[in-house]
Protein backbone atom coordinates (compact mmCIF):
# COMPACT_ATOMS: atom_id res chain seq x y z
CA UNK A 1 0.00 0.00 0.00
CA UNK A 2 2.85 2.37 0.74
CA UNK A 3 5.29 1.08 -1.89
CA UNK A 4 4.93 4.20 -3.99
CA UNK A 5 6.10 6.35 -1.09
CA UNK A 6 9.18 4.16 -0.67
CA UNK A 7 9.86 4.47 -4.41
CA UNK A 8 9.47 8.22 -4.17
CA UNK A 9 11.84 8.41 -1.18
CA UNK A 10 14.39 6.18 -2.96
CA UNK A 11 14.17 8.33 -6.08
CA UNK A 12 14.62 11.59 -4.15
CA UNK A 13 17.54 10.37 -2.07
CA UNK A 14 19.50 8.15 -4.49
CA UNK A 15 18.71 9.81 -7.82
CA UNK A 16 17.87 13.46 -7.24
CA UNK A 17 20.29 14.06 -4.35
CA UNK A 18 22.65 11.41 -5.70
CA UNK A 19 23.54 9.97 -2.28
CA UNK A 20 25.09 6.55 -2.04
CA UNK A 21 22.90 3.73 -0.82
CA UNK A 22 23.94 2.40 2.58
CA UNK A 23 25.53 5.59 3.84
CA UNK A 24 24.16 6.73 7.23
CA UNK A 25 23.03 10.12 6.00
CA UNK A 26 21.27 8.66 2.97
CA UNK A 27 19.47 6.02 5.00
CA UNK A 28 18.39 8.53 7.66
CA UNK A 29 17.10 10.92 5.01
CA UNK A 30 15.30 8.15 3.16
CA UNK A 31 13.64 7.06 6.41
CA UNK A 32 12.64 10.66 7.18
CA UNK A 33 11.03 11.27 3.78
CA UNK A 34 9.23 7.94 3.71
CA UNK A 35 7.90 8.20 7.27
CA UNK A 36 6.88 11.85 6.99
CA UNK A 37 4.81 11.38 3.85
CA UNK A 38 3.23 8.16 5.06
CA UNK A 39 2.34 9.52 8.49
CA UNK A 40 0.99 12.85 7.28
CA UNK A 41 -1.25 11.02 4.81
CA UNK A 42 -2.52 8.67 7.50
CA UNK A 43 -3.09 11.53 9.93
CA UNK A 44 -5.05 13.38 7.30
CA UNK A 45 -7.32 10.40 6.62
CA UNK A 46 -7.91 9.52 10.29
CA UNK A 47 -8.50 13.09 11.47
CA UNK A 48 -10.94 13.64 8.63
CA UNK A 49 -12.81 10.42 9.40
CA UNK A 50 -12.98 11.19 13.13
CA UNK A 51 -14.17 14.69 12.30
CA UNK A 52 -17.13 13.24 10.42
CA UNK A 53 -18.01 10.88 13.29
CA UNK A 54 -17.68 13.71 15.79
CA UNK A 55 -19.86 15.99 13.72
CA UNK A 56 -22.74 13.56 14.21
CA UNK A 57 -21.95 12.78 17.87
CA UNK A 58 -21.16 16.15 19.42
CA UNK A 59 -20.33 16.23 23.12
CA UNK A 60 -23.75 17.58 24.14
CA UNK A 61 -25.44 14.57 22.58
CA UNK A 62 -23.00 12.26 24.37
CA UNK A 63 -23.73 13.91 27.70
CA UNK A 64 -27.48 13.70 27.22
CA UNK A 65 -27.19 10.06 26.23
CA UNK A 66 -25.14 9.12 29.29
CA UNK A 67 -27.34 11.20 31.56
CA UNK A 68 -30.60 9.75 30.25
CA UNK A 69 -29.90 6.06 29.89
CA UNK A 70 -29.54 3.42 32.56
CA UNK A 71 -26.95 1.09 31.15
CA UNK A 72 -26.36 -1.37 34.00
CA UNK A 73 -22.57 -1.08 34.09
CA UNK A 74 -22.11 -0.56 30.39
CA UNK A 75 -22.04 3.20 30.92
CA UNK A 76 -18.31 3.04 31.70
CA UNK A 77 -17.62 1.36 28.39
CA UNK A 78 -19.91 3.77 26.55
CA UNK A 79 -18.24 6.81 28.13
CA UNK A 80 -14.88 5.37 27.20
CA UNK A 81 -15.99 4.76 23.59
CA UNK A 82 -17.37 8.28 23.34
CA UNK A 83 -14.01 9.49 24.59
CA UNK A 84 -12.40 7.98 21.50
CA UNK A 85 -14.52 9.90 19.01
CA UNK A 86 -14.42 13.18 20.91
CA UNK A 87 -11.39 15.29 20.12
CA UNK A 88 -9.69 16.19 23.37
CA UNK A 89 -8.23 19.51 24.31
CA UNK A 90 -6.89 19.62 27.85
CA UNK A 91 -8.27 23.13 28.24
CA UNK A 92 -11.78 21.76 27.81
CA UNK A 93 -11.35 19.11 30.48
CA UNK A 94 -12.72 21.28 33.30
CA UNK A 95 -15.89 22.57 31.58
CA UNK A 96 -16.46 19.03 30.37
CA UNK A 97 -16.09 17.60 33.85
CA UNK A 98 -18.56 20.13 35.29
CA UNK A 99 -20.99 19.57 32.45
CA UNK A 100 -21.00 15.83 33.09
CA UNK A 101 -21.37 16.22 36.87
CA UNK A 102 -24.17 18.68 36.39
CA UNK A 103 -25.96 16.23 34.13
CA UNK A 104 -26.01 13.68 36.95
CA UNK A 105 -23.46 11.39 35.33
CA UNK A 106 -21.59 9.40 38.02
CA UNK A 107 -18.04 10.48 38.80
CA UNK A 108 -16.53 7.17 37.67
CA UNK A 109 -18.25 7.37 34.29
CA UNK A 110 -16.96 10.92 33.88
CA UNK A 111 -13.46 9.67 34.68
CA UNK A 112 -13.79 6.88 32.12
CA UNK A 113 -14.43 9.53 29.51
CA UNK A 114 -11.65 11.82 30.74
CA UNK A 115 -9.10 8.99 30.67
CA UNK A 116 -9.84 7.59 27.22
CA UNK A 117 -10.38 10.91 25.47
CA UNK A 118 -6.72 12.02 25.45
CA UNK A 119 -5.34 8.47 25.39
CA UNK A 120 -7.05 7.31 22.22
CA UNK A 121 -7.41 10.26 19.90
CA UNK A 122 -7.28 10.75 16.16
CA UNK A 123 -3.66 11.90 16.12
CA UNK A 124 -2.43 9.00 18.23
CA UNK A 125 -4.31 6.49 16.05
CA UNK A 126 -2.94 7.96 12.82
CA UNK A 127 0.60 7.88 14.16
CA UNK A 128 0.24 4.38 15.55
CA UNK A 129 -0.91 2.92 12.23
CA UNK A 130 1.94 4.62 10.42
CA UNK A 131 4.63 3.63 12.88
CA UNK A 132 3.59 0.31 14.36
CA UNK A 133 1.11 -1.15 11.90
CA UNK A 134 -2.54 -2.06 12.15
CA UNK A 135 -2.28 -4.96 14.60
CA UNK A 136 -0.48 -2.99 17.31
CA UNK A 137 -2.82 -0.05 16.72
CA UNK A 138 -5.89 -2.18 17.33
CA UNK A 139 -4.36 -3.57 20.50
CA UNK A 140 -3.49 -0.05 21.66
CA UNK A 141 -6.98 1.29 20.94
CA UNK A 142 -8.78 -1.64 22.56
CA UNK A 143 -6.58 -1.53 25.65
CA UNK A 144 -6.96 2.25 25.86
CA UNK A 145 -10.73 1.84 25.88
CA UNK A 146 -10.56 -0.94 28.48
CA UNK A 147 -8.14 1.09 30.56
CA UNK A 148 -10.60 3.99 30.70
CA UNK A 149 -13.49 1.64 31.47
CA UNK A 150 -11.73 -0.24 34.26
CA UNK A 151 -10.11 2.83 35.83
CA UNK A 152 -13.47 4.62 35.77
CA UNK A 153 -15.12 1.65 37.43
CA UNK A 154 -12.46 1.46 40.16
CA UNK A 155 -12.64 5.23 40.76
CA UNK A 156 -16.41 5.02 41.15
CA UNK A 157 -16.06 2.25 43.74
CA UNK A 158 -13.68 4.44 45.77
CA UNK A 159 -16.52 6.93 46.40
CA UNK A 160 -14.52 10.05 45.81
CA UNK A 161 -17.29 12.66 45.79
CA UNK A 162 -16.07 13.98 49.15
CA UNK A 163 -12.81 15.09 47.55
CA UNK A 164 -14.27 17.44 45.00
CA UNK A 165 -13.75 21.15 45.57
CA UNK A 166 -16.65 22.80 47.47
CA UNK A 167 -18.22 24.59 44.52
CA UNK A 168 -18.25 21.39 42.48
CA UNK A 169 -19.95 19.59 45.38
CA UNK A 170 -22.62 22.23 45.16
CA UNK A 171 -23.01 21.56 41.45
CA UNK A 172 -23.23 17.86 42.28
CA UNK A 173 -25.96 18.46 44.86
CA UNK A 174 -27.99 20.36 42.30
CA UNK A 175 -27.30 17.83 39.58
CA UNK A 176 -30.32 16.70 37.74
CA UNK A 177 -30.91 14.41 34.88
CA UNK A 178 -31.53 17.53 32.97
CA UNK A 179 -32.07 17.41 29.28
CA UNK A 180 -30.47 20.51 28.00
CA UNK A 181 -32.44 21.85 25.20
CA UNK A 182 -29.99 20.75 22.65
CA UNK A 183 -30.92 22.07 19.30
CA UNK A 184 -28.98 19.97 16.90
CA UNK A 185 -27.73 22.30 14.28
CA UNK A 186 -29.49 21.39 11.10
CA UNK A 187 -26.60 21.26 8.78
CA UNK A 188 -26.28 19.91 5.32
CA UNK A 189 -23.42 17.52 4.66
CA UNK A 190 -21.76 20.24 2.64
CA UNK A 191 -21.82 22.69 5.56
CA UNK A 192 -20.53 19.99 7.89
CA UNK A 193 -17.72 19.12 5.53
CA UNK A 194 -16.50 22.69 5.32
CA UNK A 195 -16.36 22.90 9.13
CA UNK A 196 -14.68 19.49 9.37
CA UNK A 197 -12.22 20.47 6.65
CA UNK A 198 -11.07 23.58 8.48
CA UNK A 199 -10.75 21.57 11.71
CA UNK A 200 -8.61 18.96 9.93
CA UNK A 201 -6.31 21.68 8.67
CA UNK A 202 -6.16 23.27 12.15
CA UNK A 203 -5.23 19.99 13.84
CA UNK A 204 -2.68 19.12 11.16
CA UNK A 205 -1.10 22.55 11.36
CA UNK A 206 -0.78 22.09 15.12
CA UNK A 207 0.90 18.68 15.02
CA UNK A 208 3.03 18.83 11.86
CA UNK A 209 6.03 20.53 13.50
CA UNK A 210 6.09 17.97 16.32
CA UNK A 211 5.65 15.05 13.94
CA UNK A 212 8.45 16.22 11.66
CA UNK A 213 10.85 16.87 14.54
CA UNK A 214 9.93 13.51 16.06
CA UNK A 215 10.52 11.71 12.77
CA UNK A 216 13.78 13.59 12.23
CA UNK A 217 15.09 12.55 15.65
CA UNK A 218 13.80 9.05 14.97
CA UNK A 219 15.54 9.08 11.59
CA UNK A 220 18.85 10.05 13.10
CA UNK A 221 18.61 7.43 15.82
CA UNK A 222 17.53 4.88 13.25
CA UNK A 223 20.70 5.44 11.28
CA UNK A 224 23.13 5.64 14.17
CA UNK A 225 21.97 3.34 16.96
CA UNK A 226 22.95 -0.26 16.32
CA UNK A 227 20.26 -2.95 16.15
CA UNK A 228 19.35 -4.44 19.51
CA UNK A 229 21.19 -1.69 21.38
CA UNK A 230 18.59 -1.42 24.15
CA UNK A 231 18.08 -5.11 24.62
CA UNK A 232 20.95 -5.20 27.07
CA UNK A 233 19.34 -2.57 29.31
CA UNK A 234 15.66 -3.10 28.88
CA UNK A 235 15.10 -6.75 28.39
CA UNK A 236 11.60 -8.19 28.60
CA UNK A 237 12.43 -10.05 31.78
CA UNK A 238 13.48 -6.88 33.55
CA UNK A 239 10.55 -6.50 35.93
CA UNK A 240 11.25 -2.88 36.75
CA UNK A 241 11.35 -1.59 33.18
CA UNK A 242 7.59 -1.10 32.80
CA UNK A 243 6.96 0.79 36.06
CA UNK A 244 10.04 2.95 35.59
CA UNK A 245 9.09 3.84 32.02
CA UNK A 246 5.52 4.69 33.08
CA UNK A 247 6.46 6.78 36.08
CA UNK A 248 9.01 8.69 34.02
CA UNK A 249 6.35 9.33 31.39
CA UNK A 250 3.54 10.75 33.53
CA UNK A 251 5.08 14.16 34.27
CA UNK A 252 6.24 14.50 30.66
CA UNK A 253 4.13 16.68 28.56
CA UNK A 254 4.52 16.27 24.90
CA UNK A 255 1.80 15.70 22.49
CA UNK A 256 1.95 12.19 21.19
CA UNK A 257 2.96 13.51 17.80
CA UNK A 258 6.51 14.18 18.91
CA UNK A 259 7.07 11.21 21.16
CA UNK A 260 5.63 8.36 19.06
CA UNK A 261 8.11 8.50 16.16
CA UNK A 262 10.98 8.35 18.66
CA UNK A 263 9.36 5.48 20.54
CA UNK A 264 9.01 3.54 17.31
CA UNK A 265 12.76 3.63 16.78
CA UNK A 266 13.35 2.59 20.38
CA UNK A 267 11.15 -0.44 19.78
CA UNK A 268 12.97 -1.22 16.54
CA UNK A 269 16.23 -1.12 18.47
CA UNK A 270 15.13 -3.56 21.11
CA UNK A 271 12.90 -1.93 23.72
CA UNK A 272 9.99 -4.32 24.37
CA UNK A 273 6.75 -3.03 22.88
CA UNK A 274 4.79 -3.32 26.15
CA UNK A 275 7.32 -1.16 27.93
CA UNK A 276 7.19 1.37 25.11
CA UNK A 277 3.38 1.42 25.03
CA UNK A 278 3.19 1.92 28.80
CA UNK A 279 5.60 4.82 28.37
CA UNK A 280 3.51 6.33 25.58
CA UNK A 281 0.27 5.92 27.49
CA UNK A 282 1.86 7.73 30.41
CA UNK A 283 2.95 10.58 28.19
CA UNK A 284 -0.29 10.88 26.24
CA UNK A 285 -2.85 10.05 28.88
CA UNK A 286 -1.64 11.88 31.96
CA UNK A 287 0.17 15.14 32.20
CA UNK A 288 1.03 17.77 34.80
CA UNK A 289 -0.68 20.66 32.96
CA UNK A 290 -3.88 18.61 33.00
CA UNK A 291 -3.48 18.04 36.75
CA UNK A 292 -3.07 21.79 37.25
CA UNK A 293 -6.30 22.45 35.38
CA UNK A 294 -8.16 19.79 37.30
CA UNK A 295 -7.20 21.50 40.57
CA UNK A 296 -10.12 23.83 39.97
CA UNK A 297 -12.56 20.97 40.41
CA UNK A 298 -10.71 18.38 42.47
CA UNK A 299 -8.74 18.47 45.68
CA UNK A 300 -5.11 17.45 45.54
CA UNK A 301 -6.00 14.13 47.13
CA UNK A 302 -8.51 13.30 44.41
CA UNK A 303 -6.06 14.18 41.63
CA UNK A 304 -3.43 12.00 43.32
CA UNK A 305 -5.86 9.06 43.55
CA UNK A 306 -6.99 9.59 39.96
CA UNK A 307 -3.43 9.63 38.62
CA UNK A 308 -2.35 6.68 40.78
CA UNK A 309 -5.18 4.44 39.64
CA UNK A 310 -4.58 5.25 35.98
CA UNK A 311 -0.80 4.84 36.34
CA UNK A 312 -1.31 1.47 37.97
CA UNK A 313 -3.61 0.35 35.16
CA UNK A 314 -1.06 1.52 32.58
CA UNK A 315 1.69 -0.47 34.29
CA UNK A 316 -0.47 -3.59 34.33
CA UNK A 317 -1.29 -3.22 30.64
CA UNK A 318 2.41 -2.71 29.91
CA UNK A 319 3.17 -6.10 31.46
CA UNK A 320 0.26 -7.64 29.55
CA UNK A 321 1.56 -6.28 26.23
CA UNK A 322 5.02 -7.68 26.91
CA UNK A 323 3.45 -11.08 27.49
CA UNK A 324 1.04 -11.03 24.53
CA UNK A 325 3.14 -9.36 21.83
Amino acid at each position, binding site marked *: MFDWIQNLADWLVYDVLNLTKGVHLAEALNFFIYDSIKILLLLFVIIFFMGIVNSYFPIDKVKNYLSRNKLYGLEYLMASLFGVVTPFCS*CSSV*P*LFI*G*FVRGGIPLGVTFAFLITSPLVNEVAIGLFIGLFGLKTTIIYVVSGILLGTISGFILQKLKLEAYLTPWVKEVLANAQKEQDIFIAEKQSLKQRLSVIW*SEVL*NILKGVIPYVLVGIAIGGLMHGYIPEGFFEKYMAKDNLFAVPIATILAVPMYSNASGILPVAQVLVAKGIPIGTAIAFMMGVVGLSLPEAMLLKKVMTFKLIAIFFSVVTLCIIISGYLFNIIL
Partner: protein
Amino acid sequence: MAINKTNIMSKVIKILGTGCPKCKTMTGIVKEVVSENNIDATVEKVEDIMEIMKFNVMTTPALVIDDIITIKGRIPSKDEVLALLK
Protein backbone atom coordinates in the same frame (compact mmCIF):
# COMPACT_ATOMS: atom_id res chain seq x y z
CA MET B 1 -17.99 45.47 32.99
CA ALA B 2 -17.78 48.34 30.59
CA ILE B 3 -20.75 47.66 28.46
CA ASN B 4 -22.22 50.62 26.67
CA LYS B 5 -25.88 50.27 27.50
CA THR B 6 -27.02 53.55 25.98
CA ASN B 7 -26.39 52.28 22.49
CA ILE B 8 -28.90 49.52 21.86
CA MET B 9 -27.32 48.59 18.54
CA SER B 10 -24.02 47.76 20.15
CA LYS B 11 -23.37 44.04 20.31
CA VAL B 12 -21.82 42.33 23.29
CA ILE B 13 -19.41 39.63 22.25
CA LYS B 14 -18.04 37.23 24.84
CA ILE B 15 -15.32 34.69 24.28
CA LEU B 16 -15.41 31.87 26.78
CA GLY B 17 -12.20 30.01 27.41
CA THR B 18 -9.82 29.15 30.21
CA GLY B 19 -6.87 30.68 28.45
CA CYS B 20 -5.75 27.95 26.08
CA PRO B 21 -4.03 28.78 22.78
CA LYS B 22 -7.22 28.09 20.82
CA CYS B 23 -9.12 30.66 22.87
CA LYS B 24 -6.46 33.27 22.18
CA THR B 25 -6.64 32.53 18.47
CA MET B 26 -10.39 32.97 18.53
CA THR B 27 -10.13 36.27 20.42
CA GLY B 28 -7.67 37.53 17.84
CA ILE B 29 -9.91 36.59 14.94
CA VAL B 30 -13.00 38.18 16.50
CA LYS B 31 -11.17 41.40 17.35
CA GLU B 32 -9.82 41.65 13.82
CA VAL B 33 -13.24 41.12 12.28
CA VAL B 34 -14.76 43.77 14.56
CA SER B 35 -12.14 46.41 13.82
CA GLU B 36 -11.77 45.66 10.11
CA ASN B 37 -15.50 46.00 9.52
CA ASN B 38 -16.15 48.83 11.97
CA ILE B 39 -18.69 46.76 13.85
CA ASP B 40 -20.13 48.41 16.92
CA ALA B 41 -19.40 45.79 19.55
CA THR B 42 -17.56 45.18 22.78
CA VAL B 43 -15.35 42.11 22.95
CA GLU B 44 -14.92 40.56 26.34
CA LYS B 45 -12.88 37.54 27.38
CA VAL B 46 -14.45 35.33 30.02
CA GLU B 47 -11.78 33.21 31.69
CA ASP B 48 -13.41 32.41 35.01
CA ILE B 49 -14.61 28.81 34.96
CA MET B 50 -17.71 29.53 37.06
CA GLU B 51 -18.75 32.27 34.65
CA ILE B 52 -18.10 29.95 31.72
CA MET B 53 -20.25 27.23 33.24
CA LYS B 54 -23.21 29.59 33.45
CA PHE B 55 -23.37 29.30 29.69
CA ASN B 56 -23.47 25.53 29.94
CA VAL B 57 -20.75 24.92 27.39
CA MET B 58 -18.54 21.87 27.64
CA THR B 59 -16.04 22.68 24.97
CA THR B 60 -14.00 25.82 24.73
CA PRO B 61 -13.44 28.24 23.12
CA ALA B 62 -17.02 29.38 22.73
CA LEU B 63 -18.29 32.50 21.04
CA VAL B 64 -21.26 34.22 22.66
CA ILE B 65 -22.97 37.10 20.87
CA ASP B 66 -25.61 38.97 22.88
CA ASP B 67 -25.91 36.02 25.27
CA ILE B 68 -26.46 33.48 22.52
CA ILE B 69 -23.88 30.76 22.05
CA THR B 70 -23.00 30.71 18.40
CA ILE B 71 -19.86 28.60 18.18
CA LYS B 72 -18.32 26.17 20.61
CA GLY B 73 -15.24 24.02 20.70
CA ARG B 74 -13.60 25.20 17.52
CA ILE B 75 -11.95 28.16 15.88
CA PRO B 76 -14.18 29.85 13.32
CA SER B 77 -13.00 31.51 10.14
CA LYS B 78 -13.15 35.29 9.76
CA ASP B 79 -15.98 35.00 7.24
CA GLU B 80 -17.99 32.91 9.65
CA VAL B 81 -17.60 35.42 12.47
CA LEU B 82 -18.51 38.27 10.14
CA ALA B 83 -21.66 36.46 9.01
CA LEU B 84 -22.67 35.94 12.66
CA LEU B 85 -22.15 39.58 13.50
CA LYS B 86 -24.09 40.97 10.58
